[in-house]
């Protein structure tokens, strides 16, 4: 080292620089490794959680394929393998093509606010449906999921939407009755037509087979499109996939890949385990003729279409025709109802009431078992595996909330005692409200809960860029951009701001004619809320 110190200094500087670089590098490396480790750990966790979705998909395929192909297979009109191939191909197409389009609406499981909780709810529902499938009983997968969500609600102290429960009860009764009425009416009409048309037995066989294949294919397509949201919807925000392109030919989006995976799981369920339920539906309750088999599939599709189609209601209203009341319908229950209808039309002697009793008890126990299993499993997952199974939801009746409630015609003076008190959990908040206002109607209660729920949002410019252009209109996106940088405590505040900035964000007057528009807008709003949500802003590991 020289006396001037230069080299020394240099060397020191260099040394420090090198040391610093080393430290920095080492820190960077450590950070990168940490991040990588976290990412790998997260991806593994996500993959583990994804298995519950796949299990649910498998259970759904094993049980629900019977609704579309059960009667065809049991009446030996279509071989099981043929039915399974058609069903799988069509449901994969339905899930990937139409399911991904409706992915923003999510499934029922999308209500759950923590991935491990959603995993367990899906797993419990799948387990319940699996048990029922093992017993050869056709059950409603949606009801199993709703049951599991009720279990989650009970565990997390969230409020169970009483309308969901009422819907299940109503479906148990209304759906089989409607299925039976339509099954009997269509069967009678078909018999009359066939007796007059004098079609050769073999030709009729051909037509029926074709009819069963077409009806089954469409049924499978809609099965895939409607249920993939329940199977995979909850993983949309956390899946490990990325868009995949083959040259300029076509691109498979990440969501489509996710849904493809779910649809394959459903398909595996169809192939491996659905025959038993198919035989129960198509032969167990009442041996059906091929024409009867076709009538059952058609009757259940008509019931589903007439009593659950908002589009049909909109068409009838816009044509000035009377509307058909929309009621919750389940395809399993409609199919069983249609079989009973045909059986009763034939005098009811062939109906095996014991099998029917088993099926009905399966319907009742499905949501109950799912909720109990979910509750117990959540307890284990939280306390044994230390997983966050729910994020706490907080409620506050702040000044702006009370103002908002007053605007919607609620007397807020009585609510003053709980003003500005932040309450954790829906049930606690409801109890606090009920203490001061005991005679609260369900509608008012829902309004207060909706307005008071804290759901912190930040209109982050980075997040705005993630908005799918095709899903929101340009004007809607401009409306969101206008609010860039702003934060909100409640979803309704963002809605007020959005509807003030753009007419395309404004809900129309509440009537049957505007129902489809408002429903779509609600889905778009939900998408925006989820995108801009400041996650973990209240997450507490219980």
């Amino acid at each position: 080292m020289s006396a001037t110190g230069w080299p020394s200094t240099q060397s020191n500087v260099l040394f420090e620089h090198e040391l610093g670089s080393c430290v920095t590098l080492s820190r960077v490396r450590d950070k990168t490794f940490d991040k990588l480790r976290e990412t790998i750990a997260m991806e593994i966790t996500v993959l583990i959680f994804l298995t519950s979705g796949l299990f649910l998909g498998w259970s759904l395929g094993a049980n629900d394929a019977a609704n579309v192909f059960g009667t065809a297979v049991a009446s030996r009109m279509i071989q099981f393998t043929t039915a399974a191939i058609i069903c799988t191909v069509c449901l994969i197409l339905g899930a990937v093509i139409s399911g991904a389009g409706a992915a923003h609406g999510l499934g029922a499981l999308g209500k759950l606010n923590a991935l491990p909780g959603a995993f367990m709810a899906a797993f419990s529902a799948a387990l319940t449906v699996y048990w029922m499938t093992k017993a050869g009983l056709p059950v409603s997968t949606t009801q199993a999921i709703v049951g599991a969500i009720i279990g989650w609600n009970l565990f997390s102290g969230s409020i169970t939407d009483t309308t969901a429960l009422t819907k299940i009860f109503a479906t148990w009764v209304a759906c089989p009755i409607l299925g039976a009425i339509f099954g009997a009416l269509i069967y009678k009409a078909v018999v009359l037509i066939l007796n007059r048309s004098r079609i050769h037995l073999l030709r009729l066989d051909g037509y029926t087979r074709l009819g069963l294949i077409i009806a089954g294919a469409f049924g499978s397509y809609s099965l895939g499109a409607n249920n993939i949201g329940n199977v995979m919807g909850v993983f949309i925000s956390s899946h490990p996939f990325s868009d995949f392109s083959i040259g300029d030919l076509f691109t498979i989006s990440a969501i489509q890949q996710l849904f493809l995976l779910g649809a394959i799981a459903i398909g595996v369920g169809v192939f491996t385990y659905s025959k038993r339920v198919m035989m129960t539906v198509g032969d167990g309750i009442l041996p059906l003729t091929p024409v009867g088999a076709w009538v059952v599939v058609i009757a259940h599709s008509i019931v589903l279409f007439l009593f659950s189609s908002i589009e049909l209601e909109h068409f009838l209203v816009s044509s000035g025709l009377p509307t058909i009341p929309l009621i919750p319908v389940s395809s399993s229950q409609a199919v069983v109802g249609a079989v009973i209808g045909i059986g009763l039309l034939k005098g009811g002697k062939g109906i095996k009431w014991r099998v029917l009793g088993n099926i009905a008890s399966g319907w009742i126990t499905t949501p109950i078992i799912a909720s109990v299993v979910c509750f117990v499993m959540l307890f284990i997952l939280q306390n044994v595996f230390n997983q966050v199974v729910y994020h706490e939801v907080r409620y506050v009746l702040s000044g702006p909330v009370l103002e908002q409630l007053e605007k919607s015609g609620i007397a807020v003076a009585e609510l003053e005692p709980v003003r500005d008190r932040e309450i954790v959990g829906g049930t606690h908040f409801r109890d606090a409200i009920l203490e001061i206002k005991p005679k609260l109607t369900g509608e008012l209660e829902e309004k207060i809960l909706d307005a008071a729920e804290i759901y912190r949002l930040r209109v982050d410019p980075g997040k705005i860029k993630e908005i799918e252009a095709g899903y929101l209109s340009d004007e809607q996106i401009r409306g969101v951009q206008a609010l860039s940088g702003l934060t909100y405590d409640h979803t309704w505040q963002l809605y007020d701001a959005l509807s003030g900035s753009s007419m395309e964000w404004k809900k129309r007057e509440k009537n049957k004619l505007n129902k489809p528009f408002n429903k779509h807008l609600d889905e778009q709003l939900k998408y925006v809320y989820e995108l801009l949500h400041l996650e973990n802003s209240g997450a507490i590991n219980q």
Partner: protein
Amino acid sequence: MNLKVENLALFGKTKKIEIMIDSLMDCISNGAMKFESGFDIYLNGAEEGRCDDSVHQIRDLEVEGNRLRREIEGHLYTDMLIPDSRGDVLSLLEDTNYLLGLAEDIFLAITVEKPAIGDTFKGDFKLLASTAVKSVESTVLASRAFFRNITAVRDHLGKVSFHEEECDQIATRLKRNIFASDLKLENKLHLRYFVDKLDRLADEAEDVGDWLAIYTIKRSL
């Protein structure tokens, strides 16, 4: 590769089997008519060769009927058509085809054994054969209706029963007259044997009809 146009067309194979079933029914119906006309020829005492021609014609029809039946059965099984009524259809086709075989057997026995039917009994024998053939024809009509017009089956089956009862009455009357006559016992027994054979044709037709009634109930939608 089986790339025939009929197999490629929608319902092409179905149409082919439909035609085959109709052809089988035609064979049975034609065979029954041939049987009646052949028996007439025999009763009128025409030369031996003409009766043999009738035997050959009925036999050809029976062979053709058997071929069609086997082919239809093969198609129904290999293509897995009409799964719920396949068994019934196969039984029906076999049973109706059996009537043709029976008619051939009877006529062959007549030409071989040459029963001496006196003028006194010719009228009743002719009537017996004609009524038995009518019962067979009604069975064929009922079978055709089973495939195309299920509601008409019952009407045709009513006629089968009617003709069978007629046959029973004619046969009884004929046997009484035969045994009341001055013929030798061996002749009487020989004639009775043929009366029973002719009557059996109607009985078998009725049996087919009874099964057909059950198949119809099963097929009723």
